């Protein structure tokens, strides 16, 4: 039901608070509603779902121009209200390490993600399969004729799902376990004194009134820009490196990426293959399908390229006459024999910290900072885009079935001055990682170091393929919902150490060095004793003198032996087991060798030992 914020509410009745009512938010709300009451908070109004979000979605753009940011809608249903439905699952390739382009892969496996695809596809009214049927005309004409290329389908849903439209939104609003606040904007997150849980949300109404909503479990699903902006704004009032800011490397907002789109080439298809007709027939299908060329992985690896696809929209010959004026007369006289297409090349961007969402100096009407969006591509990106274009043009030309001509602005070695079209798909600003040093949320989409704060949507993508994100982040949202309703979610406890932290007393023998955000060992043996029995697993975050040797034992069982450097490089060391000997407490013992002092290293006169620095410990 729609709630009246002014009326007294029992906020404790809600097990889940979802920020944002777009695809991710409402999908989660519906899934979680069978496990507890859900409160959905939407900044925009219930109606006006076709109006572009203004005010709250103003941004300061400082990188590649991002004029289409206004295409994100601030209303019930979010941007689903003008969704065009183009969907395709991620390639398994992106989950693995692609050393040829310097992308490390995802912290979860393809299997963990793909297990939730059928549910997401069904929810979005997408077909259950993306496999190409046996269609001899296409198979023989395209695939056999173009080794190195694959022909794929890019589906659109039928009927298109617009969550805010009348006739659809009622399934959420009328759900007895879902309550909805509209025109209510979350302007801040309030952490508990230990800094390990979100205690409450601060919200603002258009009339200027402010309210505090205590929360048990919070799910941010406000979009790739707003998720990061809200965390950055909320995190600014806590110490540097806090989890809202993205941990020690303050990664919240970093790795912002998009799907750069270029229209670099005219493809003149030989009529004998009837390729254009084959493509156009796809549009007669229900649901509508788009024809997509993709190079095989082997080609991408050999040429050290990120993934890309070439999408043929139904545009036919749409060239400016000035662009064809210099074609020789004999060619033009034969033009009836060719189909000309200017397809969209959709590229995967390499994630990097120089592309980010931050806080602007400009303020919105609630006094919070507008987001600063700094979209940046690297020189390597542009070089890959150009080389990928030439590779594709060669593949499409190899049997003489087509000739390809670059459009005038692309006839240069250096593409870095070209401005790509963006897709308004905001990816990667709260990226998923094994370790807080590399990302903002863990493999359960939970913010590192905060026990009850989760993020949904494309902002958790470590990198995003070249594909539209909706289907893919809904699969992850389905996985998140299963995690939240499973047996592990409420069992996880985060112990953070350092000055002012309530848990430093758990650090016993050997932990004498204090720092603002953690504790140092200065002894060859250091213990952590946690009042926790029946433990199934734990993670630690720490670093230290990298050449020191360290052995870690958990309740008497050795779980790690190596150097501090190996431990630190092990992303976010996670140890799971069902056979840690259980007792009243859980004890971790760190045994060190090869400890030195700064004086021995010649770095200072400091005689203290350099051991290990631990910032937090999670157990479940």
């Amino acid at each position: 039901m729609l709630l009246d914020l002014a009326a007294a509410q029992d906020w404790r009745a809600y097990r889940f608070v979802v920020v944002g009512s777009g695809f991710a938010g409402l999908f989660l709300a519906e899934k979680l509603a069978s496990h507890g009451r859900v409160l959905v908070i939407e900044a925009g109004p219930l109606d006006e779902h076709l109006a572009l979000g203004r005010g709250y979605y103003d941004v300061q753009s400082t990188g590649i121009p991002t004029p289409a940011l206004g295409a994100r809608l601030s209303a019930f249903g979010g941007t689903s209200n003008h969704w065009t439905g183009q969907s395709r699952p991620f390639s398994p390739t992106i989950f693995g390490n692609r050393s040829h382009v310097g992308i490390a892969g995802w912290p979860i496996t393809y299997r963990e993600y793909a297990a939730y695809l059928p549910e997401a596809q069904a929810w979005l009214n997408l077909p259950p399969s993306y496999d190409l049927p046996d269609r001899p005309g296409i198979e023989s004409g395209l695939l056999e004729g173009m080794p190195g290329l694959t022909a794929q389908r890019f589906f659109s849903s039928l009927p298109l799902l617009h969550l805010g439209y009348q006739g659809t939104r009622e399934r959420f609003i009328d759900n007895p376990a879902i309550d909805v606040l509209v025109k209510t904007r979350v302007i801040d997150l309030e952490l508990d004194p230990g800094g390990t849980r979100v205690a409450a949300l601060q919200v603002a109404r258009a009339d200027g009134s402010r309210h505090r909503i205590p929360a048990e479990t919070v799910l941010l699903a406000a979009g790739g820009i707003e998720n990061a902006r809200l965390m950055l704004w909320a995190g600014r009032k806590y110490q540097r490196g806090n989890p809202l800011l993205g941990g020690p490397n303050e990664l919240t907002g970093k790795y912002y990426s998009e799907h750069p789109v270029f229209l670099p080439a005219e493809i003149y298809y030989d009529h004998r293959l009837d390729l254009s007709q084959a493509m156009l027939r796809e549009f007669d299908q229900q649901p509508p399908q788009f024809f997509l060329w993709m190079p095989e992985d082997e080609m991408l690896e050999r040429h050290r390229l990120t993934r890309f696809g070439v999408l043929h929209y139904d545009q036919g010959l749409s060239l400016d006459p000035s662009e064809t004026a210099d074609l020789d007369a004999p060619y033009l006289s034969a033009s009836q024999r060719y189909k000309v297409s200017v397809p969209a090349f959709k590229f995967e961007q390499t994630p990097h910290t120089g592309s980010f969402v931050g806080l602007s100096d400009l303020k919105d009407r609630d006094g919070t900072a507008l987001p600063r969006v700094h979209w940046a591509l690297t020189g390597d990106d542009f070089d890959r885009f150009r080389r990928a274009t030439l590779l594709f043009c060669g593949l499409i030309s190899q049997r003489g079935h087509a000739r390809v001509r670059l459009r005038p602005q692309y006839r240069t070695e250096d593409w870095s001055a070209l401005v790509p079209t963006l897709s308004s798909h905001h990816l990667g600003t709260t990226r998923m990682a094994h370790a807080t040093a590399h990302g903002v949320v863990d493999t359960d989409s939970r913010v590192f170091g905060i026990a009850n704060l989760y993020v949904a949507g494309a902002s958790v993508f470590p990198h995003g393929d070249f594909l539209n994100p909706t289907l893919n982040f809904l699969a992850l949202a389905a996985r998140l919902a299963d995690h939240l309703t499973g047996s592990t979610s409420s069992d996880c406890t985060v112990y953070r150490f350092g000055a002012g932290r309530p848990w430093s007393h758990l650090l016993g023998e050997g932990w004498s060095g204090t720092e603002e955000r953690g504790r140092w060992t200065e002894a060859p043996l250091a213990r952590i004793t946690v009042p926790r029995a029946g433990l199934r697993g734990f993670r630690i975050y720490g670093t230290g003198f990298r050449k020191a040797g360290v052995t870690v034992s958990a309740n008497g069982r050795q779980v790690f032996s190596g150097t501090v450097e190996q431990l630190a490089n092990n992303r976010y060391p996670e140890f799971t087991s069902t056979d840690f000997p259980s007792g009243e407490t859980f004890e971790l013992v760190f045994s060190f060798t090869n400890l030195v002092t700064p004086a021995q290293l010649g770095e200072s006169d400091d005689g203290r030992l350099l051991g290990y620095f631990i910032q937090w410990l999670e157990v479940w």
Partner: protein
Amino acid sequence: MPHPVLETLDPEQFVTLRNAIEADYATGRVIALPDGWIVSLTEARLFAESDKPTPTGRPDRVSP
């Protein structure tokens, strides 16, 4: 515009060069000419070694 080089070759040479051209395309050995047309390195070399003009992209002149 006729292919300025290939059509002057004898059949055996034609097949050899056609295969080389296809292999170039299949492995990404291509360049963009100043007028935008993308050709294989073999084609580009043929044109450079001849005094003939470059092609404008008639597919049927590359593959018989």
